[in-house]
């Protein structure tokens, strides 16, 4: 059976264990080192890695020219460059309330882009 071994550094807690993951295609066969939460992390990381993404979009009529934004849930890692391209072409206007949705269901992922702060109109 063709299995592969990969090393994954766990980021679940600050300890930062190096997990040795053996898998057969998309099926994780075994995980050496780390705890139960780490093993779950390794499975997720090797089958569907995701990251919280924080960036900014242009805004007019506020104290600053940029509005910081974040993804409402961890976003598929391979599609982050695509997401950044979308954000680069967005411009919004004040007033904006914290957590307000800036882009709904971005790139069809079911994940929203939200404002990280309130910015009043000036």
């Amino acid at each position, binding site marked *: 059976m063709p299995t592969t071994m990969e090393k994954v550094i766990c980021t679940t807690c600050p300890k930062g264990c190096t997990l040795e993951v053996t898998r057969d295609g998309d099926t994780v066969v075994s995980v050496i080192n780390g705890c139960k939460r780490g093993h779950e992390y390794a499975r997720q990381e090797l089958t569907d890695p995701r990251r*919280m993404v*924080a*960036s*900014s979009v242009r805004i007019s009529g506020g104290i600053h020219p*940029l509005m*910081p934004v974040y993804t409402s849930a961890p976003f598929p890692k391979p599609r982050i460059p695509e997401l950044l391209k979308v954000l680069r072409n967005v411009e919004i206007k004040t007033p904006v309330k914290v957590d307000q949705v800036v882009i709904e269901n971005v790139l069809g992922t079911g994940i929203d882009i939200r404002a*990280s*702060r*309130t910015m009043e109109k000036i």
Partner: protein
Amino acid sequence: MTRKERYDVVVIGSGPGGLAAAIAAKRNGAGDVLCIDRDLEPGGILLQCIHNGFGMETFKEDLPGPSYAQRFIDQAYAAQVEFLLDTMVLEITRDKHIFATSKQHGFLEIEAKAVVLAMGCRERTRAQVRLPGTRPAGVYTAGTAQRWVNVEGYMPGKNFVILGSGDIGMIMARRLTFEGAKVERVLEVMPYLSGLTRNYVQCLMDYDIELQLKHTVKNIIGKNRVEAIEACAVDDKWNPIPGTEEIIPCDTLLLSVGLIPENELSRKAGVLIDPITAGPYVDDGFQTSVPGVFSAGNVVHVYDLVDWVSEAGLTAGKSAAILAQKGKLAESPAIPVKAADNVRYVVPQTLHPDHLADGDIRLQMRVTRPIEKPVWVEVRSGDNLITRRGEPYARPGEMVTINLKQDLLDVVKAAPELTVAVVER
């Protein structure tokens, strides 16, 4: 807002420490509470920390910096904390007179019954790490670059080298990559990462940014603008190893080489500074050596998590409110809390045993040397073990905490002093 000349509590700084202190002062019965900040808006450095990872302790949520700040800003306004923004505090006297200037109000003198110092910390600069080479444009601290990129909308360069593997440096490496720049290298003089592993994985590994441990900048090259840096390997004493030099072409060098509590105002007020933390000596209520002057957050010692800064702010603000109303805080004198085996420092440096009647007292420390095995964090009075707790490991980069529980009141009352150690189990 009509500006007053007298306040119960005046807080200097509106970052996470200051906001929490102002809110807590109001909630604990202080009348007029004023928060002064030199920036145009409250929130402090959190406003430029647009990445996630804040608030897991306080809100059980993973928030971006500005969102974390927003919650406290909204609470402060709701609690009717007054703000004096775009205002620079010049001096605080021992009798709690505050002198400040602002474009709008001119020169100001404000009197307070209690003051909370919450000025935070500053980044170590090129001069403070004595980097050799020419002095071209293009050498900045990571936080300066962060402010430009995340708040003001400027890119400080195209090709970066980052010195220091602190969290801000690694987070900026990712951020600059997001904005189209190339981060050529991250150099770290120590044999280990100085920031969190999480940031190494999510900021450097994810974007194939190379980290070199035991490496530093030997020379900065360029006349008007940085053209390259000369990197080299170092030995255990940080001396350059001849023959390992490498020229890395780049137009910008960012420094992420440590933070120092900002205590110019504290010193002028006569507040005694601990040479190890570079922050004021404080008691368990965060009162400094000057009665009625409190201090909270990164101005006391540099924390790992903003949640703990907020927590310290709440404690300081509460103490300030009580002092402003009652004129005193404790019945019993304070006893020293001293760093013993493998502990570099402990905050608070003193505590009032009778305060245990009101709740637990939290001790926070940093260890001197790493122990990658289970450890005990022990609090003793002489040879007597008062309390201890286990940790799976101890590292200088990660703050260690132990709570003195309320039920230890009688034991602690009888102790002339406490010592704290972190030892192998």
